[in-house]
């Protein structure tokens, strides 16, 4: 659990998911049980109705953590995506109703190029890369995820934001028919998140379209989501339909919902506790019952890349 210098990690060091599962099967076999009798509920829980298409991508070792990635099973069955329900297992169960094609993305606000674009037009010019990112939830648990995507900065640059574009706002799809969780007003729908433009342009900010070499499962924010590994997970908007450049700081959903508990910045910070729990350490998903907690790192271990963005700011006040 180190992440500092973004050192080289050889692709050969990463266990491909299929081999990981093969190891499981072998273990189960050794116990005299086949994997299918041992894990029926689990296997079916994450099997998508339509198999997820494989993506073409290259590995970006420079921006990949050396930690061992969580399994696809864990990543796709343990989600906070309130649009599909409040329980961690709800999104995997309910996100089948989301239609990710056709999909369009609207660009608005302080940019030279605005309008509505098909997802095909949005994705076409961007070569995909895999980055293994550390993911830290504000609820003090963490995962390591091999995303497939491209730099958010490359996408934003295409719309030529003007000098007045100081913030970038992301809006998630609003459609209670496809997103059953939106039928209840747990949050003020649609879900909105935002970044300062220099945060959005940081090379770590990733526009994500896949995981484990395949298209994103719906419950992970298909077809288009961001991931900001130095911030708490709720900052990374999912199933994005709109990007707006603005001069004034937009309000973000969780900060509106509980301003004392969730701020605009939401940078991972072990020294600034959530009012109801400590952020000094985290539980890594997959550790089971006897794993020790891990210490949480400043900016989730990405301080070297992003600390400069917050120079001179009081991070206790701007939580």
């Amino acid at each position, binding site marked *: 659990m180190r992440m500092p210098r973004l050192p080289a990690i050889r692709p050969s060091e990463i266990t491909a998911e299929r081999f990981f599962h093969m190891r499981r099967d072998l273990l189960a076999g050794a116990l005299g049980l086949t994997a299918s009798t*041992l894990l029926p*509920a689990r296997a079916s829980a994450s099997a998508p109705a339509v198999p997820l298409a494989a993506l073409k991508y290259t590995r970006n070792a420079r921006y990949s953590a050396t930690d061992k990635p969580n399994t696809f*099973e864990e990543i796709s069955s343990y989600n906070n995506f309130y649009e599909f329900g409040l329980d*961690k297992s709800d999104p995997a169960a309910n996100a089948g109703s989301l239609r990710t094609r056709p999909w369009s993305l609207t660009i608005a606000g302080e940019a030279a190029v605005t309008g509505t674009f098909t997802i095909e037009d949005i994705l076409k010019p961007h070569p995909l890369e895999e980055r293994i990112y550390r993911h830290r939830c504000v609820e003090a648990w963490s995962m390591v995820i091999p995303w497939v995507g491209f730099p958010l900065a490359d996408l934003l640059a295409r719309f030529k934001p003007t000098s007045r574009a100081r913030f970038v706002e992301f809006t998630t799809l609003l459609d209670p028919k496809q997103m059953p969780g939106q039928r209840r007003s747990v949050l003020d729908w649609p879900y909105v998140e935002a970044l300062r433009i220099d945060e959005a342009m940081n090379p770590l900010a990733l526009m994500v379209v896949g995981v484990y070499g395949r298209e994103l499962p719906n419950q992970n924010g298909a077809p288009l989501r961001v991931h900001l590994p130095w911030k708490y997970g709720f900052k990374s908007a999912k199933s994005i339909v709109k990007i707006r450049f603005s001069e004034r700081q937009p309000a973000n959903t969780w900060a509106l919902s509980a301003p004392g508990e969730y701020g605009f910045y939401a940078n991972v910070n072990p020294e600034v506790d959530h009012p109801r729990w*400590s952020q000094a350490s985290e539980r890594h998903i997959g550790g089971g*019952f006897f794993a*020790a*907690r891990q210490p949480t790192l400043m900016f989730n271990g990405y301080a070297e890349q992003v600390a400069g963005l917050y120079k001179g700011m009081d991070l206790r006040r701007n939580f």
Partner: protein
Amino acid sequence: MSNASPRQPGSIERRYRFLYKPLLFIACLVPLAWCISGTLGLPVPTLGADPPRKVLGILGHTALNLLLITLAVTPLRQLTGNANLLRLRRMLGVFAFSYALLHFINYVGAIQGFSGNLIVKDIYKRPYITIGFAALLLLLPLAITSTNGMMRRLKRRWQSLHRLIYPIAILGVWHYWWQVKKDLREPLIYAALLAALLGWRLWRRQRATSRSASPTAPGTA
């Protein structure tokens, strides 16, 4: 405790002892069995990608459910006139304590990784954990004095001591309420049920005192 009504001889008592009580005992073990078999990978409803957290929830919910069910025994007895229900109450209470204790042990071990420092800080700094811990501490003397011998020895004081169940239940629901992130539906349901169970008792008491104040009323104490 043995006040089987005169028109029904020993048979109903035996049914409680040898049928209903064992069945309830098995039912009370189901959540624990789910946690254990889920952890072992047996084909039960999955505990998901984060079993320690799921188990924490199952144990906590079960403790709270059993607390409320224990509190429902007296109102049910009064409503139905079935005094035999009391034969089940002690077991329910002891199970409530056991699940609360397992919930705490799971928190200490699987959630906080046996870090004494973290746990002490949590209990001291996090109000919802302070409250939960207080509820567990208060349950302890009730569990210890749940035996027949203790009941005999403590006599009248036993009942006063066991009235602690009321503040304990309030703390338990409060503990749940404060740690929910967003959706208050479930804590609200628990709070409403608890309010009904405690309200029933207040209402009965009020009625009893106002009746005994009037000279013609038969004693209902």
